[in-house]
């Protein structure tokens, strides 16, 4: 989740209350306080609430939550003559564009930082790293409408932001820092998305970089927004969040015509919500009036529209409201989670342990009784530990991870004994004897199965110890087994046996081969046992 920095001075001015009150209530409107600094507080908001990714948005929510100003904010949009044409060549590249004009805004440094912050957050959360949505904010007075959004050739040149020379689109993609970060989104497309004005001045090369010409400064008074992308709903969400934020910051919104469509539409969506079903879900007994009051605190427009219904106007920036329950959640937040009494239901049910877990508990009891200490190694391992060091061929049933994050975790374990040996290596300086065991999941042929392994190391650890321990284990499990001379290369020839249960090989025990001990860098003899629980307990 992106971290939003809220400078106290700006926040206090917009909220109309002191920082102490604000910080105290921040977690209760749904945020994680990252750190409290001298000049600002850094918070994380949930990805669903993009409208809170600016100081203006937080202030709007906070004023409502604290009851300083409730109900919906009205966002008037007046018409303008500004228009865009959209090139049909972009239909398979980046077909959607949203735009609006913000007039008479005075941006101080803090407002500009806030604007850049929400842009970044929208790029990340809604825009999926600019692939789905990218945003440009321009100084409108530097360019001349109408604008056109079209597919340009790579040889087209302009001065990109933070540069003082003309570059062509190829150069920007290769050399500009933003080009290197985002060129993968449009690379290999036949034409590049570009926005220019009536005089051929470039405003933006979405989703990569704006032109230096329209850079927004504290002197900028009138802004043009461009939001481009591959998903119309996401484009409109980002546009609405931006417009409402800038209106809250003091701007006036004017519409723009895109291929004849007038936008932005900042009107709320109306829903009739059911009071009884809200109460049923939350376990509350609110009246329609109370529910409407709470929703007003959450900055909805809300009035009782019947004994059992509230008419709710959902602000256009609340893209997260998809379902009635999303409104109910805001009722719970607005009422305060602390005011909802936690209460256990009367649902009756008898507890029941899972048979595999029950079996694991029994195995633990037996192993502990035999003097073994439990360990809990990772389930992800690698070829080297699992097979090479064990002098074994890789198990053909092994499951490999497609894109490992390191050489340490390239596959899901098929055996447990190698992991016990690896733990003995890590503990070689600890007091002997060491007797350890583990029981848990392995994956064989895409099936999650269970195994048990034990290892004992000390100067006298040998085949006899492994045999005696296996014998005790099988006796405690009430199982009949047959030892059969084993050729497992992890063990010393003539000092290992396969465990045969019901005619099937269910495991192996014996004295670990010194070659294996060398590979694991273990200095003392090791007696080891491994059992496949799915085989020994198969009917």
């Amino acid at each position, binding site marked *: 989740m992106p971290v939003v920095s809220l400078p106290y001075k700006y926040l206090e001015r917009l909220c109309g209350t002191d920082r102490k009150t604000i910080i105290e209530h921040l977690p209760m409107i749904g945020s994680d306080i990252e750190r409290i600094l001298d000049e600002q507080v850094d918070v994380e908001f949930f990805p669903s609430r993009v409208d809170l990714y600016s100081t203006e948005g937080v202030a709007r929510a906070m004023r409502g939550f604290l009851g300083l100003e409730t109900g919906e904010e009205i966002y008037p949009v007046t018409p303008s003559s500004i228009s865009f044409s959209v090139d049909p060549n972009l239909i398979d590249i980046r077909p959607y564009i949203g735009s609006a004009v913000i007039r008479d805004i005075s941006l101080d440094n803090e407002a500009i930082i806030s604007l850049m912050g929400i842009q970044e957050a929208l790029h990340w959360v809604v825009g999926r790293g600019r692939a789905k949505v990218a945003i440009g904010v321009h100084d409108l007075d530097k360019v001349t409408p109408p604008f056109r959004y079209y597919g340009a050739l790579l040889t087209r040149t302009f001065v990109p932001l933070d540069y003082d020379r003309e570059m062509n689109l190829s150069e920007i993609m290769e050399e500009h820092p933003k080009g290197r970060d985002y060129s993968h989104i449009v690379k290999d497309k036949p034409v590049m998305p570009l926005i220019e004005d009536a005089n051929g001045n470039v405003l933006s090369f979405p989703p990569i970089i704006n032109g230096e010409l329209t850079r927004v400064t504290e002197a900028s008074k009138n802004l043009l927004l461009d939001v481009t992308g591959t998903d119309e709903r996401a484009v409109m969400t980002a546009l609405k969040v931006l417009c409402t934020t800038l209106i809250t910051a003091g701007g006036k919104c004017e519409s723009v015509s895109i291929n004849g469509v007038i936008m932005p539409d900042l009107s709320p969506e109306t829903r009739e919500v059911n009071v009884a079903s809200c109460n049923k879900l939350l376990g509350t007994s609110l009246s329609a009036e109370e529910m409407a009051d709470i929703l007003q605190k959450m900055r909805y427009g809300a009035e009782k529209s019947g004994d059992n219904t509230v008419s709710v106007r959902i602000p256009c920036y609340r893209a997260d409201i998809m379902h009635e329950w999303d409104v109910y959640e805001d009722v719970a937040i607005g009422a305060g989670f602390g005011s909802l009494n936690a209460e256990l239901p009367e*649902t009756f049910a008898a507890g029941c342990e899972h048979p595999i877990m029950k079996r694991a508990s029994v195995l633990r009891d037996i192993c502990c009784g035999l003097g073994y200490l439990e360990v809990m190694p990772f389930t992800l391992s690698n070829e080297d530990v699992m097979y090479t060091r064990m002098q074994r061929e890789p198990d053909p049933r092994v499951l490999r991870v497609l894109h490992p994050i390191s050489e340490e975790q390239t596959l899901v374990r098929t055996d447990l004994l190698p992991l016990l040996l690896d733990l003995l290596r890590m*503990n070689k300086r600890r007091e002997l004897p060491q007797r350890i065991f583990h029981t848990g999941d392995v994956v064989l042929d895409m099936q999650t199965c269970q195994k048990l392994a034990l290892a004992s190391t000390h100067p006298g650890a040998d085949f006899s110890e492994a045999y005696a321990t296996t014998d005790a284990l099988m006796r405690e499990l009430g199982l009949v087994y047959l030892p059969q001379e084993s050729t497992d290369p992890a063990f010393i020839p003539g000092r290992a046996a396969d465990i045969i249960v019901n005619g099937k090989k269910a495991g192996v025990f014996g004295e670990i081969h010194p070659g294996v001990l060398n590979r694991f860098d273990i200095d003392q003899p090791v007696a080891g046992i491994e059992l496949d629980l799915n085989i020994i307990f198969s009917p």
Partner: protein
Amino acid sequence: MQLTLNEKRLLLELVKVGTTTPEEIMATLDRPAESVVQYGGLLSQKDLATVERNVTTTLSLTEEGSRYFCEGLPERQLYQSFKDSSSIADLNKHPHAKIGLGWMKRLGWVKIESGNVIKTGDAAPSPLEVYLKSLDNAPADIKKELIKRGLATEEETVRYVISITEKGRKLAATGINLSEETGTLTADQISSGAWKDMTLRRYDINKHPRPVWPGKIHPYQRMIDEMRRILLDMGFTELHGSIIQGAFWNFDALFQPQDHPAREMQDTFHLAGKQDLPIGWEKVRDMHESGGDTSSSGWGGKWDPEKAKATVLRTHTTSLSIQHLAGHSKPPVKAFCIGRVYRREAIDPTHLPEFEQLEGIVMDDNVTFRNLLGFLKEFYIRMGFESVRFRPGYFPYTEPSVEPEVYIEELGWVELGGAGIFREEVTTPWGITCPVLAWGLGVSRVAMLRMGLTDLRQLYQSDIDWVRQMPTYGGRC
């Protein structure tokens, strides 16, 4: 008062002689002098005797000193090697010329005139010569000189004097039993009754025993078992399932949008192969695209069945919960699972690519959000966290969502898991008509808090000493 046999024997000897030294008495007691000192020390701790420690220093000749004791000091030997005078050149041929000439001059035995050494008189013995023959009588400055010239060394001698006290005499007067003590009791001695006439040696309880390390359940597993026990006690059925899941159950069935970054290769371990979609998958598609027949708008856009067929290592045990619900759509359902989950993260002290997650679900006709808070509170209190509070949370598959926090001394409010009511978009495709309360918890995070760990790896790559030292009983049952 408890005395060992040796202490008793020493005390009885002291009664006879009053005061003695270890050297005098060692033969009688048949013990080395050091042992006698030790017994005396034990008696003195009980005020039965006093042990006086006297340190004396004695001077003795070094090897070089001994040689000169017989042959005379170098200056004397040199003096006697010539008559009244000699040239320096001749004198230099003598083995002691270098050291002897200087001393002869300093002692005034000779003077040097135009390259010749001339005797001045009869060379009276110097103090060094005198005291070399009787070291014990040497004054302090001569001793220092002898040590400086390497002719003698100083040695410290510690002598002990042991005397009986009045208390010791009184105790001895009451009579002391000196019969032999027995160490190991044999079967014969037990059955024959011989033990009745034997004194069994007492052990020193102040001596620490050799450590014995029992076999035991790992502290982390013990905590997991405690959580399992709590949930079983609260009437939950335990789930267990495959760690390999289709993206359908891991993400899509939980209303995770298909372009959510958590689904990508960067965050989730992808595996080769495709998983078949279950019967009824179309309803999940409709939910994503348009909200199906609920009041939801869905995410919009196209839902791609191929994406849902991808195979992953489960990123949460919620994939098991939803499959359990899909198979048990009628109330009531109370189920939980504690299992390993996987995230594609590099290993560091607080991040691991695999860790345990706990998850509980409750489905019933009239359960509410308040009931969810009730379950959370009950569970955390049973886990030993006394203060629990709730704040808003967000998860794609729950609404309302909540993040429980517990209060921990020195840390303040700590977020411990997430919870909520499964969205209708999640439950409706499976014909579930009543609310499903759900909560999840990072088990390893609780372990860190409970065991005071700073590095999560300790749980999975344990130092055996840490496991050995960690008490089995953590203060609660």
